[in-house]
């Protein structure tokens, strides 16, 4: 009922590193510092570590589910809960993937409007980005893997420019090391987890990995690399800004790029935002791919048509969201749903799958 993809559509296991990492580094990194600092002050870097560790745990859980099911989430749901209930949960998953792409797209366009082109209306950028994503997704999963991989390669040099703010660093900012209460740290960890969301797409693309179980270590490496990048960015931000200033800076990482002073370029943030597009694009593409692929698995509709429908929806909803508040509400809703999905639903699914399999065997 749910056939596995053909061998020539699959990618090597090590690409899971790029796929997972590309999904976790998106718009969040441009301004996550403010949010975690508001809860836990400059001890918030511990929150990055703790939430990262919990994500590694969840990846372990995901691989247990996937290795046993040896298919994507749609097939696993159908196997465990039957056609209707399973299909319902799968459908919610699809909507979540779609909403993920929507959040990333709309947040990036907001950054563009605030930082680069205040006078251009948002629908133009939304349209162009959707068009580009459509062009990638129609290339299939291999092309999407390609854009995640190349996006990371193009984005990495941006890490180097962090050394400019380090020249003005005040390392005393970090002291005392543990100033926040455990409750504050827990709150900050919870908020940090939102930035690590996105690895759930693994549930959709797992069958497209050659020798899936082997890719597990690459998934861990991907998360570890994300943790490193968040930690490093947070470190640079913390030593550059003082705490009160950071609490009122919405896009701290972006503001840091302003410090960069190259011989031939000033105002580096314009370049930064443009290059960052290559880190945003994989998020939207993978989100759309997962959603459209899921539709194709659930309903008798071709993936191409499903993709067209999703692109149209993406455009309409993005244009309808006009102000900061609405975007904020969307971001919060999607991240809350994501949070409960990964921390409650996934472990439940693991247990449930274990029990059902046992029962079925008898």
């Amino acid at each position, binding site marked *: 009922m749910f056939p596995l993809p053909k061998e020539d559509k699959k*990618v090597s296991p090590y690409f899971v590193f790029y796929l997972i990492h590309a999904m976790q580094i998106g718009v969040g990194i441009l301004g996550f510092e403010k949010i975690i600092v508001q809860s836990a002050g400059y001890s918030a870097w511990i929150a990055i570590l703790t939430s990262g560790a919990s994500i590694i745990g969840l990846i372990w859980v995901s691989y247990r589910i996937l290795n046993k099911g040896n298919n994507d989430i749609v097939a696993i749901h159908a196997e465990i809960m039957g056609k209707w209930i399973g299909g319902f949960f799968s459908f919610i998953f699809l909507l979540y993937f779609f909403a993920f792409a929507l959040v990333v797209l709309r947040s990036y366009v907001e950054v563009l409007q605030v930082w680069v082109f205040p006078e251009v209306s948002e629908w133009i950028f939304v349209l162009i980005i959707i068009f580009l994503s459509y062009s990638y997704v129609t290339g299939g999963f291999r092309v999407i893997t390609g854009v995640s991989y*190349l996006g990371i390669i193009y984005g990495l040099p941006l890490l180097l420019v962090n050394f400019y703010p380090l020249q003005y660093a005040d390392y005393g900012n970090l002291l005392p090391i543990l100033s926040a209460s455990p409750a504050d740290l827990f709150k900050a960890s919870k908020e940090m987890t939102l930035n690590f969301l996105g690895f759930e797409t693994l549930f959709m693309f797992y069958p497209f990995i050659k020798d899936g179980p082997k890719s597990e270590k690459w998934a861990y490496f991907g998360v570890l690399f994300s943790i490193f990048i968040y930690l490093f960015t947070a470190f640079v931000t913390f030593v550059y800004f003082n705490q009160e200033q950071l609490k009122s800076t919405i896009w701290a990482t972006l503001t840091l790029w302003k410090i960069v002073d190259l011989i031939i370029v000033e105002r580096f943030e314009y370049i930064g935002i443009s290059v960052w597009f290559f880190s945003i694009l994989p998020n939207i593409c993978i989100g759309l791919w997962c959603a459209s692929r899921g539709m194709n698995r659930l309903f008798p509709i071709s993936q191409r048509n499903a993709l067209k429908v999703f692109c149209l929806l993406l455009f309409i909803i993005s244009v309808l969201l006009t102000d900061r508040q609405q975007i904020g509400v969307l971001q919060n809703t999607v991240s809350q749903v994501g949070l409960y999905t990964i921390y409650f639903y996934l472990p439940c699914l693991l247990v449930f799958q274990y029990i059902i399999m046992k029962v079925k065997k008898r």
Partner: protein
Amino acid sequence: MGFFKSKLKRFNRDNSKTKNENSEHELQIDELLHRCKESNDFVSYRYSNSSPFYIHYYQTIVDINILHQYILPYIKDNSSKTLFDLQQAIPIDNTEIITNVHEIRDKLLTGCIVIEVKGSLQEALVISAVSLEKRPVSLPEVEYSVVGPKEAFVESIDANINLVRKRLPIPDLIVEEVKVGSLTKTRVAVLYIEGVTDKENVNTILQRLNEIEFDQIVDSSFINQIISDNHNSPFPHLIDTERPDRVASVLSEGKITIIVDGSPHALTGPTTLVEFFSAFEDYFLSWHIASIFRLVRLFAVFFSVLSTSLYVAVLTYHYEMIPEKLLNPLIASRSGIPFPPILEAIILELTIELLREAGARLPTKIGQTIGIVGGIVIGTAAVQAGLTSNVLLIIVALAALASFTTPVYQMGNTIRLIRFPFLITAQLWGLLGVTFCFSYILSHLLKMTSLGRPYLAPMYPLRLNDLRDSMFRLPFFMQTKRPLQVRSPVRTRFQPKKHEKSKRDIED
């Protein structure tokens, strides 16, 4: 719907029936000769009244000396009465007695002398006496190299295969020939080394060649465009080269070469994007120099594509990005210019394209003059007249220069073409526009394949082994494996000797 389908089927069937009838209708030899005689260069006569032999040939494609020296004397001595006797007597190999009239016609048209005997209607002796005009093997002009072999392909397929075969004297070098083109009947040869080349690639090419339905194949670039994986792509899918040494080397890597009669360019594939920026001269230089040159070329491509559009983007939208010290010369050069940056850039880019086009169409001697006149006179005049800025002139000229560093001509054209979408998007959305355009081209390149193999190969999918001879060229002792791209059944090129670090002391 069903009604139409059945109608369509019947229509097809009727069509095929008439076609069958046409081919079933046997062409008579008299009819053939009658048709040929309409052309003035067709010669057809009976040797003498006493001789039973009729001789037919096209005098324009036959070497008349062969007829005079080796055929006529044996007809004249009158000892042979039948075609078989004559075939035995004539001291020329590869003569044939053919009964199929279609075959006779083909032979006649490719430079054979046909001898017919009185009384026998459906039989003819066919003697090959082709005389083809061809120029001698000359210097490579498109892919010139300072060191290394100086032979280039010519228009004759046999001479070209000769040039390749003498470099690969092994029986495994296989030549498969296909005739393509309903009017030109062009000979197309597919060359590969048995056992080294993936059979699937060969079959792909042969299948695509056989599927070609086109009336004229005049040059290998026709084939290149017709059998490409994506017809809407501005990027070439196969490398065309005029160097037999490059073909020999590519064949031994496990790739396939297509040689087309009448074309001095061979096609090789499957290929990758990076391969278009490797000149064959890279292998004649030491590996450090070659690697640096390759990187310079890749940088030149990016510079050529992006520089003007970045100028337009920055000067139109992001002037805050220009550092204070750089601002002075820019203002000085742009202050009197009446046009916005985009117009300025398009004028200059078009000028350069005009110069290039004019230079390419004119004979070499005048072409050089045009280059100098255009470059110096128009450039200086445009700046002095206050129409364009000095800075942009420098950028555009450098970009044009950079685009000419691409060793493969077809790719150079593509690079010059894709500058224009970048310019337009840069004008519309600044740096973001450049990013959008770049990512669109990236999506195209990611989807692209050459003979079904990924086009961006050593980069994506990442193949570390193949990087040894793509963006860099590492020394020969490290090139022990054939590229993964070609899926060669024998991946090892040679057994590397253990590279022992000498343990000798300094003065030992």
